[in-house]
Structure formats: structure tokens, C-alpha cells
């Protein structure tokens, strides 16, 4: 218990640092008007389509809620050039595969957009570059800028 308490400040600082970086990369458009950074949701569903185009690739995922009602969620990623540098392509996702994602939900009522913090395969492996930084590190981002989606 004592060890957990000692680790707590470290975890808090690390989480704060990650959060800062997650919203500080320069942007094609800013995230805040569209996605609620105060909320985090997790989804799991079946890939319907993967559109790997500019300015932002979209992953369409059919998700059933706890009542069995199916909704089509749309995951918006950072710019494809950044993802290409992470090894992504038009074949990164295949229709029919199961994915899980955690992220910030869209603000408008009745919409099912998601700005992902991470996306995982069916086996639980997290896909590198699937978060808000799109694989950017403080070292290669050229410093902080306005939060958003490049």
C-alpha cells in the first residue's frame, strides 16, 4: 500500500504529461470544437470501412450498445502523411475485423464521432500511432502548438 501511495504522484505527473502532449501537437484543425476532451469513452465493434484519405482518415465501426442497438461510429485520425510514416496504409484495417478504441466523443448530440486516444486489434494489441499525437514525439514535433488534429 505504501509503495502504491509513493507511486501515485509519479503516475499523476506522467498522466498529466501525456495529456499535455496529447493535445499540444500542431493541428490541421483543432480538436476542441468537435470532440469533448473532458469525456472519454470506449467502444468495441466491427470495422465497416476504412477511408485512408486526406485531410483525415476515417474508420467506420459498427458498435452495439448494451441494449443491442447498433450505431455507426466514425473514428477520425491524424493526417495520413503522418500515419504513412508510422507504417499505416489503406490496408491498415479490413472490413469485418474487430477493433476496440478509447477516445473523446463528438460534442453534437446524436453523433457518434470519436477522436481516438488508442485503437486496439481483436487480440488487444494497441496500434502504434493510433492516438492523438499520431506518433509524434516532443523530439520530432518541433515543439508544442495549438491542440488539434493534423
Amino acid at each position, binding site marked *: 500500500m505504501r509503495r502504491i501511495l509513493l507511486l501515485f504522484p509519479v503516475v499523476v505527473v506522467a498522466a498529466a504529461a501525456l495529456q499535455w502532449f496529447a493535445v499540444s501537437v500542431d493541428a490541421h484543425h*483543432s480538436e476542441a470544437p468537435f470532440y469533448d476532451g473532458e469525456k472519454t469513452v470506449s467502444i468495441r465493434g466491427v470495422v465497416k470501412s476504412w477511408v485512408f484519405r486526406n485531410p483525415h482518415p476515417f474508420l467506420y465501426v459498427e458498435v452495439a450498445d448494451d441494449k443491442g442497438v447498433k450505431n455507426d461510429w466514425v473514428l*477520425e485520425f491524424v493526417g495520413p*502523411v503522418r500515419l504513412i510514416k508510422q507504417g499505416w496504409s489503406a490496408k491498415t484495417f479490413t472490413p469485418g475485423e474487430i477493433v476496440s478504441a478509447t477516445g473523446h466523443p463528438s460534442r453534437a448530440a446524436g*453523433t457518434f*464521432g470519436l477522436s481516438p486516444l488508442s485503437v486496439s486489434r481483436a487480440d488487444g494489441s494497441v496500434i502504434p500511432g493510433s492516438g492523438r499525437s499520431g506518433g509524434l514525439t516532443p523530439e*520530432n514535433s518541433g515543439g508544442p502548438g495549438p491542440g488539434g488534429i493534423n
Partner: protein
Amino acid sequence: MGLLRPTFAAAAVATAILMAPGHVSPLQAQAAPNLSGIWQRTRSVTPESDQLPLNVRGVALREAIDESLAPMYDCVPATIPHILGDPYNFSIEQQRDRVIFRFEKDGVTRTAWVGGRAATPSDYALHGYSVGKYEGSTLIVDTRFYTFDPGGLEDKPPMTPSSTQKRTIERYTRTGDTLTVDVEMTDPLILKAPVKFQFQFRPTKDALVEWPECDPEQSRAPLNYMPVSSLKYGIR
């Protein structure tokens, strides 16, 4: 006389080579700094929104513009200086009469004409018309005749436009492996004083990544995630 013919022929060939488009003579190569290559951004300094020296019209225009008017949502490329500010690489190719800039961002190619004609109003374009010159170790690119751009001065919220009077002067200076680009923007219809930006880059061996096609429908889709009530005029 017989000796003159081959000499003349050689001179003609040499002249043709020197006059060929794209050829950089040894003299020019000495005079111009070597900026050619692919560059990766390392630093970006842009003015804070509340520090912009807007005139009353600039303030009013900023109030009038909201997110849904941003040209980026219709796949319109970013312009100088913002195209330098996102974390994408770009290349510089120096030729005798021009400098060609190729950006990963938005797949843009710009040309600055060195020693060419001056800009005229017939040159109005999204990226304007650029004239380049070398001064010491610095390449100076003077661009005028930009079209009106809702995000031309500030391309992120709250967003501030630039008018057809927008003018940018870019200064490219290389010190070792650091390329510094200082940009000064003037726009008497919007600004009371010039605004300065600075970007720094380092060489990279990575090839430029081709910019995939932009989908206008997908580009505009995120606007649907904004509550209409959060838009100034309730219109997406």
C-alpha cells in the same frame, strides 16, 4: 581558321549549357547559399492570438469568421506562413532562375522566381506570386497578390483572415544544419503593424511522402460534430 571552328563549337555548346533552364553556374553557386534538400521542422514561433496588431477592420473580420468558414474544410491548402508551421517536411530546389518549394503538407508546390519579372495583379492566386533574390547568405522571397483567405493571418480558432493586400517576406538562412525561416507579414487592410513568425528546420534523409488525395466530403464531416449552438451564426 580550322582551329577556330572547334573552338567556336565548344563555346556554343558551353553557352547553350549555361543558358539552359535550371543550370546553376559556378559563380551563381558560389553566390547563392546552399538551401537545397529536404527539411524537417524543429521549432515554430507564432504570435499569440491576442497579441496580433489588428486594426478595427481586422477585429471585426475576426469576429465574423467562425470554424465553418475555414477553407481547410473544403480541402483548400494552407498558405505561407501556416504551411511552414505544421509538422510536415518540405524540400527546396534551387535553380538558376527559380527556387521550387515542395511541401508534404497539402501537396503544395510553390515557385519563387529569381531575377524574373515583378508581380502584377494578373498573378492573384491562393499562394500569390513570389519573387526571390539572394542577399549574402540569405534567400529572400517576396510574395504578393494573395487572394482573400479566411484563415490567412491566423488559421486556427479564433481565425483571422488576410486580404488581397497580404504580403509576406520570407528570409531563408542556413547556419550549419539549421535552416531558419523568418516570415514577416503585412496587410494594411487588417493589420496596424507587421506580424513576424519564425520556423527552424534540420536536414532529413527521409523522402517526401506524397500527399494522398483530399476528400471534400470527409474534410467537412467534423463540422457535424459541433453543436450548432456553438457556431456564431448557427450555420454549418
